[in-house]
């Protein structure tokens, strides 16, 4: 039974954190280079601008769902299953989502890097 809970948690983590990552990446691209903004307008302007982006709030909500799913998963399932499985699947899901929704140029180099990291994460947990 706890196995099913663990995989349900993993599925939820992957879905929620991919949604969150894409929304946050989208929001921050709209805000623009934070380092430059910080030098020109100061910290408060940066925080204000980030908080005023509606997709940012949605992204944080999705991240909160992912965070609490992770807490659930960790309290039920094995750390050695939940952590690497959700991390590896999130890497791959994010690469696909970034290509589809953010129109990032995900070339061969980035795919190889993503898959290397995902496989490495799984191997480290074996």
């Amino acid at each position, binding site marked *: 039974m706890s196995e099913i809970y663990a995989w349900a948690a993993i599925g939820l983590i992957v879905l929620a954190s991919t949604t969150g990552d894409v929304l946050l990446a989208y929001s921050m691209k709209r805000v623009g280079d934070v380092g430059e903004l910080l030098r020109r307008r100061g910290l408060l302007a940066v925080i204000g601008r980030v908080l005023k982006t509606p997709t940012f709030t949605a992204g944080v909500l999705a991240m909160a769902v992912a965070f609490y799913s992770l807490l659930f998963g960790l309290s039920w399932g094995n750390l050695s299953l939940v952590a690497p499985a959700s991390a590896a699947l999130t890497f791959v899901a994010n690469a696909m989502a970034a290509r589809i929704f953010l*129109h*990032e140029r995900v070339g061969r180099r980035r795919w190889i890097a993503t898959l290397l990291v995902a496989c490495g994460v799984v191997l*480290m947990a*074996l």
Partner: protein
Amino acid sequence: MTFRKYLVLAGISLFATAGDSLLARGMKNLGGISLHHLSGLLLAILNPWIAAGILLLLAFFACYLSALSWADLTYVLPATSLGYVLVGLIAHFGFHEEISLTRWLGIALIAAGVGFVAAGPSVTPARQHQDAVAGSAQTVSQPGEVRP
């Protein structure tokens, strides 16, 4: 990519790794949380390990947002996975833990992945990206919008 930007990427790896470790430690203290006692999840924040973990994850989040403002998501994610390698190296050289061959192989794969993505461009060229952001405005923001 300036030195400061590489520092931000390093901050993402370090803070995320340390924060997650503290969280895992705290959750082990608490034990299982059942679906019928969801309040246990809210109270989890009162555990000092979890509180410290959350503080570090906040630092991670600030670095992460900063990186996403000047680099692609598909660049930031693989480039900041060095944390996994760090944990392995600290466990071996700091705490003299045995590391199996498969774990060393995993560490090597991740390090290779990081090197691979870091050697490439960090952001999709500007003009195309502007088009992409404008084009995806409808697809991304609509399902994400939260209305009370």
